[in-house]
C-alpha cells in the first residue's frame, strides 16, 4: 500500500513581508493505485505543490506523507518521482538516454541489473532498447517524454507526479503520451498525481479530480461528479470556458 497525503501543506516563497503564499493549507490524498487529476490556471500553485512533494520546494507548513511517514528528500532512494513539463529541457543533452535512466535506478543496484532495468524500461515505454545509446537530440518530443517517464519509473517509485507532461508537446503527439500513461497505470498500478490545465486531458486519465485556485483546493471528488455536477462556482467557470463547451 502506498498512499500519498498532503496534510495541510503550505509553501511560502520570500520573506514574511514581501513573500507570497503559493500553496495554502492544501489537504489532498492520492490513494494507492489511483490517478488523481489536479486542474487549475497558471499561478494557482499546482507545480509548487508537485515540487513540494519531491523536495524541490520548501514546505513551510504541514507535511507530505507517504504511508504516514514524511517523504524522504535526502540523496538516496526516492519513492516519489516526478515527470516534468518540457521534455526538451528535462533530459541532459550530454547524456545518452540510457545513462539518464540508469542514473535514477536506486543506488547499490548491481551494474548488470541496472543495465537490464534500462532495457526493460525502454521496452515498457515503447522505445526500442537498442536506442539506449541515443542522445536526446536524436529523439522527437514524444519519444523524449517517454524517456522521462521511464526515468521516473527507474527509481521504483510508489507514487509518480506528472506535471503538465503533455502541454509542451505537439497536438499529434499528446495522444501517444496519454495512452502510455493510462496503460502503465493499468499494468503497474502506480499511484499518480496528474497535473494539467486542460480539463479534457485530466478527464481522460484521472478517476478523481481536484480543482486548485490561488493556492487552495476549492473542490475535489470523483471525476464524473466534479465535471458533471460541479459544486464550486470556480469549477463551473472553468468548465464553461473550455472551448467548444455548451454554454
Amino acid at each position, binding site marked *: 500500500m502506498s498512499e500519498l497525503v498532503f496534510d495541510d501543506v503550505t509553501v511560502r516563497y520570500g520573506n514574511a513581508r514581501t513573500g507570497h503564499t503559493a500553496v495554502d493549507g492544501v489537504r489532498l490524498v492520492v490513494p494507492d493505485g489511483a490517478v488523481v487529476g489536479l486542474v487549475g490556471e497558471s499561478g494557482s500553485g499546482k507545480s509548487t505543490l508537485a515540487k513540494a512533494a519531491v523536495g524541490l520546494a520548501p514546505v513551510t507548513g504541514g507535511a507530505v506523507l507517504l504511508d504516514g511517514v514524511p517523504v524522504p528528500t535526502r540523496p538516496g532512494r526516492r519513492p516519489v518521482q516526478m515527470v516534468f513539463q518540457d521534455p526538451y529541457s528535462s*533530459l541532459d543533452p550530454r547524456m545518452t538516454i540510457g545513462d539518464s535512466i540508469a*542514473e535514477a535506478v536506486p543506488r547499490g543496484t548491481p551494474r548488470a541489473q541496472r543495465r537490464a532495468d534500462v532495457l526493460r524500461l525502454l521496452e515498457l515505454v515503447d522505445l526500442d532498447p537498442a536506442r539506449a545509446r541515443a*542522445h536526446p*537530440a536524436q529523439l522527437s518530443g514524444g519519444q523524449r517524454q517517454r524517456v522521462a517517464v521511464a526515468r521516473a519509473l527507474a527509481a521504483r517509485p510508489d507514487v509518480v507526479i506528472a506535471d503538465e507532461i503533455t502541454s509542451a508537446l505537439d*497536438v*499529434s503527439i499528446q495522444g501517444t503520451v496519454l495512452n502510455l500513461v493510462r496503460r502503465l497505470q493499468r499494468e503497474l498500478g502506480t499511484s499518480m498525481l496528474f497535473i494539467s490545465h486542460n480539463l479534457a486531458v485530466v478527464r481522460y486519465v484521472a478517476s478523481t479530480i481536484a480543482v486548485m485556485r490561488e493556492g487552495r483546493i476549492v473542490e475535489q471528488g470523483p471525476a464524473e461528479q466534479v465535471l458533471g455536477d460541479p459544486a464550486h462556482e470556480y469549477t463551473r467557470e472553468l468548465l464553461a470556458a473550455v472551448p467548444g463547451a455548451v454554454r
Partner: protein
Amino acid sequence: MTTMAPGVLVPVADRPAARGRWGSVLRTPVGIGAGVLLAAVLVLAVVAPVVWGAQAEAVDTDAILQGSSAAHLVGTDNLGRDLFARTMVATGLSVRLALTATVLTVVLGMLLGAAPLLLGRRAGRLVTAGIDIAVAFPGLLLALFFAIVFGVGATGAVLAIGVAGAPVFARLTSTLAAGVASRDYVLAARVAGVGRFRVLLRHVFPNIAEPLVVNATIGAGGALLAFAGLSFLGLGVQAPDYDWGRLLQDGLSGIYRHPEAALAPGLAIVVAGLAFNLFGEAVAKGIGLTSAAGVVRGRRAAGADRQPATERGPVAGQPVLDVEDLSVAFPGAGGPVRPVRGVTFSVGRGEAVGVVGESGSGKSLTALAVARLVEAPGEVTAARLDFRGTDLRTGGERAHRRLLGTGFAMVFQDPMTSLNPTRRIGHQLAEGARRHQGLSRAAGLARAVDRLRSVRVPEPERRARQYPHEFSGGMRQRAMIGMGLMGEPALIVADEPTTALDVTVQRSVLDLLAAIRRSDDVALLLISHDVAVVREVCDRVLVMYAGRIVEDLPADRLAAGRHPYTRALVATVPDMAVDLDAPLPVIPGRPVDPSAQPPGCAYAARCPLASDRCRAEDPPLAADASGSRVACWHADEVADGALAAAGAAREEVA
C-alpha cells in the same frame, strides 16, 4: 563511440557531436587563421629562447641604440643587444606568465563560482555577494591593487593578475552553473536522489565546459595584455628579466631616435593577444555561444518547384483578402527551403476563417507573408495577393502603408513580448494612428483610451498611462486587439492569440473577437493549433500540412473531414466527450522537415491509405460542388481503418 553499456559514464570529450563542432570551427577561414596564429605563438614561446637566447644576451658596445639595419632587424638597445632576438625570446616569458596567471584565475574562479551550488543557501549567498562587489571593479584596478600587496616583480604580478581575474570568472561560472542547475534535468536528477556533488560533476560541469574553455582562452589573451601593461608600468617583470611590456617601456623613451624598439614589442603584444582572442571567439561562434550566425544564403529559388494545381473554389462578391499560389522560401544549406508552398485561399467580408495544423506546418509564416511582414532573407511569391481589391505585390512597402496601417490588424501569440516594454500603452496604441490618420498627440491618446474601453479594459484613462508589465496577460492581449482597432480594420489576423492565456481568459478574448466581428463586420483569420478553438469561433477552416492547405471545409464539418490528416488531427486531441474506455487514436511518425519534402503527398509516410500514386504524385487541392476543397487522391475512400490503433504503432522514426 565505443560500445558502452547503459549506466556507464560516457566522457564528454568522447561525444562525436562535440568533437565534430570543434572540428568544424577549425575548418572556417577565421578559425584556421586564428588556430595557426595561436599555434605559432605557442611554438615560438618554447622555441625562441633556444634559438635566439644567446644572441639576445650578446652585449656589443660598438652598436648601442642603433636603428634597424641588416645586422639588427629592429636595432639594438643601450647595451647593443639585438632587439629582434630579445623580442622573440620575450615570447617565452610573456606567454608563460600569462598562462600561469590564467590557470590561477580559472581554478580560483571555478572554486568560487561553484561554491554557491555546493554550500548551503546562506553561505552561497555570501560568496555570491562577495563576487558581486569584486566584479564591480575593473580587472586592471584589481591587478594594480594586488600588485601593490604582493609586491613589485614577476611573481607578484602573476598572483595579482591571476587573483584579479578570478571574480569575473567566478561570476561567469556561477551564472552558467545556476542556469544549468535550474534546468529540469538537474531537478530530475535531484528528485532521483543524486547528491549535490555528483550533480555538479555529471550534469553541471559537462554542460558549461565549452563556454568556460572558450572564456579561459580569451582570458589568457587578456592576461597577456595585462602583464604587458604591468611590466610597462615597471610593476611586472624586473631587469635583468624582460618581457614585451618591459621592452616596450625601454623603447618608448627613445621613440624619436629609433621607434622600432618600441614598435616591435608593441606589435608582438597585439599579435599574441589577438591570437588568443580570435581563437576563443572563433570557437565561441562555432559552438553557438554568441548570437547565432544567420542562415547560409543559398542561390535564388530556381523557378517554380513542381507545384500541384490548386483550385480557388467559388469566391462570393469581392473578398477582403484574396491569395493565390502564395509561397515563402528561405535560403537553406542545400538550396532554398519552402516552408509555405502554393497556398490559395480567400477571406470574405466579415468572414471568420481558421487555420489549423501541427507545429511547423507554416501557419504563422502564411499569416506573416499575407501581412507583408516576412523580412529578408525570406522571399514571398504569389500569383495574387489582394487586400480590399488592392494588389499588395506591386509598389513598395511605402505605397500600402496607410491601407494596411488602418485596415489590416495583427494580433500575435505572446502579448508580453509583442508590446514594447519601455513605452506606455496609450502611446503605443496612438503611434500608428498619429502617423496614418494624422491625429494630434492629444487626439491620438483620446482615441487610444476610447479603443481600450471598447476592448473592455477597465479604467482606460489610467491604464493608457501604464506600461505593459503593469497589465495582466489577458488585458495585454486585449490592448493588442485595441491597437488593431485604432483604424477601421477590415481584417484581423490573429496568430495563436490565446495560446499563452488561461482558459477563462482565453474565453474572454475569444468572446471579444466574436463581438468585434459582429458589430463591425470585420473579417478574421484565426490561427490556432487548437481545433476546438477554431471550431467554436470560425465559419470555415483551412487545414495545413507541410506548408500546403490540404483541406478547406466549413468549421461545423471538421469532424467529418475528407482528408485523412484532418480526421486524425481532430480525433487525436481529447475533448470533453471523448470515450474514456478506448485508447486515443494517434498519428504515427512525425511531420516532414520543410527542407526534405518527399516527391508525392507529404502526408504519405504517416497515412494509412497511402498508395503508390500518393508517394509519386502530390494531389491537387480540388474543389467540390459545395465549395469545399481537399487535396487527397483517396479523399472519398477514407474509412474507419484510417487511424492507427493506439499502442500498436511503435515510433521508430529517428
